[in-house]
């Protein structure tokens, strides 16, 4: 079985300061991990993905995440927050299910607020 824990339901940062959104996962197999972003009343957009290649993954809009197997973490970071980064972020794990297919498990989301 797989699970995802987003450690903060809400994070607030000032514009221009670093962003850190935390995610821990559990998985029975070697997982693939994703971060999605959702702006209000919009669908989810893929920010970045880890699929067993480089452990430091760069995504769109200056975001990056590092896969740390020993810590079972996949935290999302950005050096300098922009007002347009205000949104909800979901950490997602993709793993083999018992039926042999790949299922996604979503975290409950972290709402990022950016203060001018």
């Amino acid at each position, binding site marked *: 079985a797989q699970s995802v824990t987003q450690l903060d339901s809400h994070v607030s940062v000032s514009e221009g300061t670093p962003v850190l959104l935390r995610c821990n996962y559990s998985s029975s197999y*070697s997982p*693939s991990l*994703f971060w*999605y972003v959702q702006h209000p*009343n*919009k*669908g*989810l*957009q*893929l920010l970045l*993905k880890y*699929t*067993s290649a480089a452990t430091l993954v760069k995504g769109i809009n200056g975001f990056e995440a590092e896969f740390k197997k020993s810590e079972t973490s996949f935290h999302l970071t950005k050096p300098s927050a922009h007002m347009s980064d205000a949104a909800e972020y*979901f950490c997602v794990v*993709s793993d083999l299910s018992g039926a042999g*297919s*790949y*299922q*996604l498990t*979503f*975290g*409950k*989301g972290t709402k990022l607020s950016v203060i001018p």
Partner: protein
Amino acid sequence: SQTIHQWPATLVQPVGSPLSLECTVEGTSNPNLYWYRQAAGRGLQLLFYSVGIGQISSEVPQNLSASRPQDRQFILSSKKLLLSDSGFYLCAWSVWTSDYNEQFFGPGTRLTVL
């Protein structure tokens, strides 16, 4: 390039009325299709997924049903809506790769049941 459409974008329905939400995908063949519901403060809940025409798997017992009459069309329905059916409904598609399942999401439908 692939695109995914959902309609309507917003919907307000009375309790006990029927529901039909439609999702279509362009630019790909034989996709896997998914319906999710996002309720306030509860994250995304997978409702149904389909790996082919007429093949529907239900993840959660509920008041809803899904159908896939064509390869790139996925419909979410209900005969009688409940207040608890309110939420943001997202359709997604994916294709299998060798070792992961990246999903692409539509713009969503905001359903309010009164």
